[in-house]
């Protein structure tokens, strides 16, 4: 049962409806106004909007290296490709732009195009602008970039090592910032506590990957030096000044528009901003409008990521499980650059570091490091998944180590209802709720007892079954000042105060009496238009369909501010609240104007059922449209000195959001919802797969404006959390190669992996927001990974591996290591093995019988012309020295085809018995390196050629073709020897195997 303890309606809430008894729309599960256009295909996303005539299409050349110096970029051949209008490089960026502002004082330059160094795989190096995207991509292959690889930094541990190669040499180390905080008296608490309990955890990189990728259309008006951009940017618009600064124009000369529909964001579309600047630069350089649509490979490889975090927490605990103090060490991997608004991920939860618990003493050390990985940014749950993974694993450990029930440990530490509003150790203000009662309600209505019985029954059958819990507070409406907690009080004083979370809404009436609403919330599919129509219709006593809501944003025309946008779950509390404030102001002004003609006082004027009337005389009513339109048609008859009531714009900021104090207390969010989750999981003993048997999630998100949409937010957040907990990871090799470049490698859960949770509610209205609502969309991304991991720990009765909890990792814990594999038969190819340097390592061996004497085979192998014919995809082979060649090779693996310039060398020559063939190559698609050892053995029928090879592939090919590399390399090597056999006069090669694509399609079940 959905349990709603608080029943709301307009009549009960003096602030919502006009007090008429008409059923309020707010609080009802209204289906969405957005859906008609989306379901019928007429909705327009950014890529569907018309581009200006003459628009050039952009394709981006990206770094195949994790870390390298750029020695030179030669664009001449690319410029000669038909249809290419311009090629833009870092030199152009230096000419017309400046580096992005960084949120901490640190000498690190981040340009929209790499200037002299690349710092992660996928970093933009050059842009081709052509008449079509297809042509632009063709030309990418023709850009020659010379790199000098540098040692990569690919883990937090490595970044903390002072000996690691600094990404930003002026910084001197990869530790960008470190701050310590102390609240209460943690040392004394640790001294007096019965004992201390610790956890060390690491949260991986992952991302919510919206189904629509980034889109930018940019144009430059040379006469006014002004930029106009359309992009599916999601905000926060605090990034607008960052973009304008990078383009060296005032904000008024960067007009940014958002499309009517956007295909999801979950925070990620904040990270389109460097590309907005990049495409604006391109439009300026080319003198023509430019359009860029990110593809999925680009998105996965280089768009953005959640931060990886290493965390150690020590708790000072009493024997009964009461936690007296926490000591936290958090180290955040922000990737190659500290890109705005980072290091926000680390500070977003600073006011609620102690979660839902009453823990008065806290010591914190926060470190921020850079690594050779994609820069991080907003991602659903933003810092909360990381924090609570550590905190809730810790609470679980406290129970295990003290021999207590984990639920009792949670109970013993929850903030009490009487303590609300509760001030946390670090300065947060938990605004409302009864956490203990909410937990007990969930235990009862979610049937925890039945779940425990189920666990016992399963265990009695010898199965691995566990129950996990998590209790968290879900912050919403971020304080724009929290990020400055990373600065010292002194630095903050110099920079000037930052605080608040201003939301903007405009409400207008038109000459026909229609009501329109505009907000700067940049929705990405959540249904803002629906909720705002509910809110505003209630204020005016109108029908839902009488209010039309526009959420496109145009910074050149609409009201907005730096807090505008779609992030930090700010819509329900802040934006819907601002719309209610604006509508109420407009209604009150109309009431004042019409009161005279109704023989009434303004406060007695009522708006209901499409009519306006005096409370005491409902029969003498005017139609709303008539009252509303009068201001347009007859301003001359307004009472003296009064303005018509045509439009109101409200700027609303939550009162409790102040700047950090000198002692670093910060209320980092306006509202805090409460979540309590529990779940049962079963682990397959054979495969190690985790199956979620039952999941119960209880939310107190304040007042629910539209329960249908609230449920949708919870289900969506839960699905993301299941992915993060069990499947998803942006994987990198030790050398920084990116290994998750397709949706076949980065595993997004499907309908078969996401169960339906039981959702329970309680509603404790927030005293802070106009409508009493709090955010709800991110909570499960914070609670669910920890809850599932706690359940897995319970099932395994011991430690859990790091996220994601994949079958392989869990199976490795359940099963003893397997005995080494027996040597395979000749011709077998070993499975891809992790290479020494961590890239995609491949190795294998095999042998073939060739009907020619060893001397003849030897001669073929040593003849450059013959070798050129043997190498698969070889288009040209030139001698580069004794027994060394330079080859142009075109190789396709899965969906990517690449032109490689390869250096091939023959060594260890022992004619005609053995030789070593080694090669390395690089291209826009990545790098490859390999050696093959070939021996020739005389046999009755000719020669037995035996080969053993090992190879490593990196860059795009490794990222997208990972699953296919093994078979692809087998295929290529097979081709080499088939040709050798044919050259040596053997039988023709057997019929070719089906192509890779055909096999992939068959694998996917698409090739009927």
């Amino acid at each position, binding site marked *: 049962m959905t349990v709603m303890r608080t029943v709301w309606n307009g009549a009960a809430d003096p602030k919502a409806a006009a007090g008429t008894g008409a059923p309020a729309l707010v609080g009802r599960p209204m289906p969405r106004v957005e859906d008609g256009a989306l379901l*019928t295909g007429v909705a327009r996303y950014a890529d569907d909007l018309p581009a200006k005539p003459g628009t050039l299409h952009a394709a981006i050349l990206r770094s195949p290296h994790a870390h390298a110096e750029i020695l030179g970029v030669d664009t001449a051949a690319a410029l000669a490709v038909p249809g290419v209008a311009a090629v833009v490089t870092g030199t152009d960026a230096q000419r017309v732009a400046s580096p992005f502002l960084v949120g901490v004082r640190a000498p690190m330059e981040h340009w929209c195009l790499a200037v002299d160094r690349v710092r992660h795989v996928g970093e933009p190096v050059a842009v081709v602008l052509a008449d079509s995207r297809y042509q632009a991509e063709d030309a990418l292959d023709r850009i020659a970039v010379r790199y000098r690889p540098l040692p990569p930094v690919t883990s937090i541990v490595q970044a903390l090592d002072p000996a690691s190669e600094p990404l930003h040499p002026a910084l001197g180390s990869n530790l960008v910032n470190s701050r310590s905080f102390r609240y209460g008296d943690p040392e004394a608490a640790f001294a007096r506590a019965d004992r201390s309990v610790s956890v060390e955890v690491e949260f991986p990189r992952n991302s919510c990957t919206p189904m629509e990728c980034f889109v930018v259309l940019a144009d430059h008006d040379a006469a006014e030096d002004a930029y106009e951009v359309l992009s599916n940017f999601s905000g926060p618009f605090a990034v607008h000044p960052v973009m304008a600064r990078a383009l060296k124009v005032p904000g008024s000369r960067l007009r940014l528009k958002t499309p009517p529909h956007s295909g999801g964001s979950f925070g990620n579309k904040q990270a389109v901003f460097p590309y907005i600047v990049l495409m604006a630069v391109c439009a300026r350089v080319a003198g023509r409008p430019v359009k860029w649509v990110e593809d999925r490979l680009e998105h996965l490889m280089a768009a953005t990521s959640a931060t990886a975090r290493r965390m150690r927490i020590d708790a000072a605990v009493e024997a009964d499980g009461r936690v007296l103090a926490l000591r936290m060490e958090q180290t955040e991997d922000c990737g190659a650059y500290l890109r705005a608004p980072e290091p926000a991920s680390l500070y977003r939860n600073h006011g609620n570091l102690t979660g839902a618990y009453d823990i008065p003493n806290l010591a914190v050390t926060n470190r921020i490091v850079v690594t050779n990985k994609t820069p991080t940014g907003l991602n659903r749950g933003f810092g909360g998944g990381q924090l609570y993974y550590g905190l809730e694993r810790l609470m679980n450990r406290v129970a295990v180590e003290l021999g207590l029930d984990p639920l009792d440990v949670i109970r013993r530490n929850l903030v009490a209802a009487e303590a609300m509003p509760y001030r946390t150790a670090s300065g947060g203000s938990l605004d409302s709720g009864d956490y203990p009662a909410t937990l007990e309600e969930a235990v009862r209505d979610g049937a925890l007892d039945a779940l425990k019985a189920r666990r016992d029954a399963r265990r009695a059958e010898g199965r691995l079954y566990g129950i996990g819990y998590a209790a968290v507070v879900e912050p919403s409406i971020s304080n724009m000042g929290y990020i400055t907690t990373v600065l010292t009080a002194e630095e903050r004083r110099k920079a000037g105060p930052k605080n608040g979370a201003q939301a903007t809404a405009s409400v207008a009436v038109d000459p026909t009496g229609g009501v329109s609403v505009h907000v700067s919330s940049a929705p990405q599919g959540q249904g803002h238009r629906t909720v705002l129509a509910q809110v505003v219709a209630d204020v005016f006593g109108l029908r839902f369909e009488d209010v039309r809501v526009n959420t496109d944003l145009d910074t050149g025309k609409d009201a907005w501010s730096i807090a505008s946008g779609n992030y930090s779950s700010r819509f329900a509390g802040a934006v819907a609240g601002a719309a209610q404030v604006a509508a109420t102001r407009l209604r009150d002004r109309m009431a004042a104007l019409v009161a005279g003609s109704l023989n009434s006082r303004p406060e007695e004027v009522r708006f209901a059922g499409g009519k306006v009337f005096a409370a005491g005389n409902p029969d003498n009513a005017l139609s709303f449209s008539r009252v509303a339109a009068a201001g347009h048609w007859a301003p001359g008859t307004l009472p003296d000195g009064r303005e018509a009531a045509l439009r109101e714009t409200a700027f609303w900021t939550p009162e409790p959001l102040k700047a950090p104090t000198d002692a670093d207390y910060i209320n980092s969010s306006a509202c805090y919802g409460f979540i309590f989750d529990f779940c049962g999981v079963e682990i397959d003993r054979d495969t190690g797969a985790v199956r979620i048997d039952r999941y119960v999630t209880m939310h107190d998100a304040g007042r629910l404006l539209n329960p249908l949409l609230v449920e949708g937010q919870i289900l969506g957040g839960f699905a993301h959390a299941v992915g993060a907990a069990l499947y998803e990871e942006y994987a990198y090799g030790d050398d920084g190669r990116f290994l998750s470049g397709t949706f076949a490698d980065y595993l997004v859960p499907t309908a078969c992996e996401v169960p339906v949770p039981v959702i329970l509610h309680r509603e404790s209205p927030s005293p802070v927001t106009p409508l009493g609502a709090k955010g709800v969309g991110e909570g499960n991304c914070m609670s669910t990974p920890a809850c599932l991991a706690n359940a897995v720990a319970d099932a395994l009765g011991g430690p859990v591996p790091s996220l994601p909890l994949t079958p392989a990792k869990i199976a490795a814990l359940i099963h003893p290591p397997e005995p080494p594999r027996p040597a395979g038969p000749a011709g077998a190819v070993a499975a891809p093995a992790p290479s020494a340097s961590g890239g995609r390592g491949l190795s294998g061996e095999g042998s073939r019988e060739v009907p020619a004497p060893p001397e003849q085979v030897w001669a073929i192998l040593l003849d450059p012309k013959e070798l050129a014919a043997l190498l698969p995809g070889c288009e040209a082979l030139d001698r580069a020295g004794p027994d060394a060649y330079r080859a142009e090779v075109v190789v396709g693996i899965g969906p990517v085809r690449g032109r490689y310039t390869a250096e091939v060398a023959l060594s260890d020559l022992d004619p005609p018995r053995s030789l070593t063939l080694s090669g390395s190559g690089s291209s826009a698609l990545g790098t490859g390196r390999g050696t093959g050892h070939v021996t020739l053995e005389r046999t009755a029928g000719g020669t037995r050629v035996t080969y053993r090879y090992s190879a490593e592939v990196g860059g795009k090919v490794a990222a997208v073709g990972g699953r296919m590399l093994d078979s692809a390399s087998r295929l290529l090597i097979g081709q080499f020897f088939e040709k050798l056999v044919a050259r040596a006069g053997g039988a023709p090669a057997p019929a070719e195997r089906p192509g890779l694509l055909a096999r992939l399609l068959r694998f*996917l079940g698409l090739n009927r």
Partner: protein
Amino acid sequence: MPPLKSAATPVASVLAADARHTVTVVLNGTPRTGQAHPRLLLSDFLRHELGAHGTRVGCEHGVCGACTVRIDGVAQRACLTLAVQADGRRIDTVEGLSQSNQGPTEGRMTALQEAFRRHHALQCGFCTAGILMSLSDYLGRNPKPTEEELRDMLSGHLCRCTGYAGIVRAVMDVTGQAAACDTRSGEAAHV
């Protein structure tokens, strides 16, 4: 790129790679003609040559399902099909499911579309067209799928917004069945 077996007529190797070729399809019942290089994807042809934007592109490597259209009735990935392979074929896209282009969508959507709205089976809507096209083919062949069968079929589509629950509920509803579990049920949620 080898010809896809899914297209009945293999692409003739006689097509010149750098020339544009005339491609005619019957798009949602109306013959439409455009020009396509042999390598142009059907998804790009529909969206940018014919202006049929209702078909979305989410990955261009065949995994996400956003681009699913019906080719001669069969649901297929438009991003794994070349425009020239579609020449002479019937292509049905989301725009053709209802008469939506002739006026307000109210009352003109199919029962399935209506059920999607009722059950909040979409948020950003980017995956929705592909899912509807797959379902329109699938439900024709399997009018009363079990929830397990349905989820199995849906696993060919990625949705990042909904967690799939609303989609499953909508389909179970429109096929006259109750979904085995919903968020209100106290019953265990099994997958």
